[in-house]
């Protein structure tokens, strides 16, 4: 993923930007008077590297896909989003991150928006969550470890959870059973993991959800120890777990996700977008080679071609 960030980045809070603003307005208003194409403004938080690269990649993906002009705008905490919106009068705003959304909402915004780079599924906007679609995760599981027949997951709360929505049905179609346990606290979760692991064999897999499934580092270490001795697959939606010994995890393909957000922005312009967040389908896969070797999972070239990042054996 070698991309270039070349959008017109404006730090709204800085004095120099304020001085430049009239020129920018004149420049862009001149363009827009001659152009009938749609306008997208991408608002993203002004954060330092390496975090900034995430937003830059998403923004670039959106800019490339959106049918029209795109302006990128990095907001720091003190910025008021309304000023640039008034100046630019975009047809749609792509808002990245919860902080940017808060700034925009505080500004009494009336421009239709698309939301990205958040992991709270309760927002009623068209957009994409940073939470991976369970089908995408489980598809990678069965590609890497087709021997798995049972998948165990400990869920924090009962009720609908976008992290596992539709997972049972998807796995059932592939002849795999999903066993969901609910834990009310970390103590409860520890007991549940103990029970799962006591009865597990090499056709079982344990799925750690993005919010950790109550897994902290010590529980995770014990879980991995038993998984190692029993040849169980442990997989996760959090890539840090791969570094410590989970077989694989998925993480966002930011550029592709940006393109998908750009497409949703196109739909908003056409007034075809649904006001709901959908889970992330544009993902990359990281695999722990040492764990893969131990489990006898041969990273054939065919499989390697579908894996984006291999954390090498020590």
């Amino acid at each position, binding site marked *: 993923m070698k991309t270039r960030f*070349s959008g017109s980045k404006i730090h709204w809070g800085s004095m120099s930007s304020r001085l430049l603003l009239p020129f920018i307005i004149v420049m862009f208003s001149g363009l827009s008077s001659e152009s009938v194409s749609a306008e997208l403004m991408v608002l993203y938080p002004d954060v*330092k*590297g390496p975090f900034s690269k995430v937003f830059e990649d998403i923004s670039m993906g959106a800019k490339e896909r959106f049918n029209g002009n795109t302006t990128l705008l990095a907001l720091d905490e003190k910025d008021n989003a309304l000023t640039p919106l008034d100046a630019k009068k975009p047809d749609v705003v792509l808002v990245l991150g919860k902080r940017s959304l808060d700034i925009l909402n505080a500004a009494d915004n009336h421009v239709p928006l698309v939301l990205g780079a958040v992991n709270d599924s309760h927002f009623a906007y068209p957009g994409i969550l940073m939470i991976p679609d369970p089908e995408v995760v489980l598809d990678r599981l069965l590609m890497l470890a087709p021997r798995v027949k049972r998948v165990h997951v400990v869920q924090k709360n009962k009720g609908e959870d976008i992290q596992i929505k539709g997972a049972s049905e998807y796995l059932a179609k592939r002849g795999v059973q999903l066993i969901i346990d609910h834990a009310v606290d970390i103590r409860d979760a520890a007991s549940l993991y103990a029970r799962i692991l006591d009865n597990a064999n090499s056709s079982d897999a344990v799925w750690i959800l993005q919010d950790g499934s109550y*897994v*902290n*580092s010590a*529980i995770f270490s*014990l879980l991995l120890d038993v998984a190692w001795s029993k040849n169980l697959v442990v997989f996760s939606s959090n*890539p840090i777990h791969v570094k410590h010994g989970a077989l694989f995890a998925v993480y966002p393909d930011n550029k592709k996700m940006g393109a998908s957000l750009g497409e949703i922005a196109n739909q908003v312009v056409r007034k075809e977008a649904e006001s709901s967040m959908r889970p992330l389908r544009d993902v990359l896969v990281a695999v722990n080679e040492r764990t893969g070797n*131990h489990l006898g999972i041969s990273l054939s070239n065919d499989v390697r071609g579908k894996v984006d990042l291999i954390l090498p054996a020590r």
Partner: protein
Amino acid sequence: MGGFSMNKVVIGSIIFSLTHICLGDDSTDMDLMSLYGGEEFISIATGITQPIAKAPAVASVITAEEIRRIGARDIDDVLETIPGLHVARDSQGHNPIYTFRGIYANFNPQVLVLINGIPITNLFRGDRNVVWGGMPVNSISKIEVIRGPGSALYGADAFAGVINIVTEDADGSEKFEAGARYGTYNTKEYWASKKGLIGNVAFYASLEGQKTDGFNEKIGSDAQSVLDQYTFTNASLAPGSVNMQRENYDGRLEFAYKGFIWRAGIQSRNNAGDGAGVAEALSVDNRLSSQRVNTDLAYENKNVTENLSLKVQASYLQTTQEVDGDLILYPAGSTGPFFAMPYFPSVYPDGVIGSPEIYERHSRFNVSSFYSGLDKHEIGFGAGYYYGDLYKVKESKNYGINPETFGLLLPGDPVVDVSDTPFVFMTEDERENNYVFLQDVWHFSNDWELTAGLRYDHYSDFGDTVNPRLALVWSTTRNLTTKLLYGEAFRAPSFTQTRAINNPVFQGNVNLDPEELKSYELAFDYRAGYNLSFNLNAFYYEWKDIIQYVSAPGGSQAQNAGKQTGHGLEFETRWQPIPDLELIGNLAWQKSEDKNTNSDAGNAPEKQVYVQADWQFMPNWHMNVQTNWVMDRNRVNGDARSDIDDYAIVDLTLRRKSIWENVDVALIVKNLFDKDAREPSQNSDLGPLIYDDLPLAGQSVMAEIRYQY
């Protein structure tokens, strides 16, 4: 590890004792942190950094971030932190002697130093240039160090260890950085770098500069002090300061397009002092320079076919060793080392002058390929050609034979140019090397991997050598990896050892064989938890055919005379008890023996302890403290001096990030307590010429400012 039984005690302890993955914070950073599990992975996931793959060897990788943390300004600051590696010093130019595991020689040709995988070894002495002048770190992305031999992969001189300096690359991302430092010894440093895209071509460019008066620690006596005793002269400038000023420029340029990478670089060393003297005699005015330029073109295709990758690289390196004005070997009023000759006791009114200059070219072409089409095997193979040409030797001097008159140059005679005459200090010559290598990584069982490699080298001047290696890597438990390693290595004789002539003290020997090494290692890598890891290794080596100067008719001659064995242990640990604090420690112990005299090999530290604490004590405020203890350096056999004093040097770096937008500032204090630390000087037939050893820099303070976006 059989069944899983977590009783309530265990459950209780894990609940209350643990670091939780941070969730639920409103800030955008924390959203991303929880999603990716940490800043380190964000960098990897966004392609800013690559995951580190270690060779099946005892290896260390130090990243740019780690280099910055310790306030390192030269690669030697970084290399000193690696267990089992100590940077000793040579009297000439204070050049580094990268001493791995007790393997010590004053020109240090037993260590292979690579920049971006390409050797920078010089033919003349087998080192990195007589006028090395250090190497700045501002454009380095990481330094990879392999302790132990690597000739099966890297060929000649990958002997005691391999140091690969990897510079920032043209990865297509956009980045600009500029910075400056100013501090003690009137030291000024600056650098700027930019990477980005021009159309579809990624580029990286950097420029670094340094100008310093150099540290001014003193030596009490020198080679001239010894001569003064024999000749009743009073010429020595000792006690006096070492001569450490220099002016350096480093530039790097890289363009990448599809599978092609073109790089060019320059390392310019100017107005460089000669340390404690070229002949271990102080002089004030000696100035040397070295111009080193390199370029290489590489093409890499990871998918030539589904199972085959290919890398082709051609490279060129040109180096010089130059003298500005005259190089004074012994100061004005000295008789030089000719006091036994008939014209004793005449003295050289301008000193004994000998200004040797060396010009070299090195061309390399390599092809390597990896094939993974066989189940459980990854096969690597390759071949290469090297042509090295020491194409120009220049010398002017005021002693020896005058090539115009064939008479002896006597004290008071002018300096004459002896270049291209039979009376120059060494002959111009060239060297060719062809090689092939084969390697197989065999995953013969789920937790077992065997790497077997073999490399055949043919040299135009000393013949053939075959070097194997074996590495057995066992994933013993989830946390523990065990490695058993065997390797052989060779060190090519340098041209000064084979072709030196007209030197009143040392003569070369064209019949030299390469030095050889066999090494056995057992290594453990244990990850005790999320944030705690341990590494331990034990090693044994046999080093034979060591090239030493032994008495022969007409002076000493280089011969494959020495033999040394060594064994030891290295231990390292990293611990991050809380997110804002990281502790690193290592301990190295070695015992090496000169088998000819059955005595301690000497010079290298037998014990070394290193501790580093890196602490973010307030948001954006970082403090790094490191201490390096160097202990138990024995004298070589026949050196009557008492053992050199141990030392502990403490460094402190205080950094304020984002003091203004995109601007960081730092204060770097090296040798905080101004410890008088010394590295061993050499012994000689007349006893040690610099009796009180070679001083390291005292306390220095540097202020740094850095801008990046």
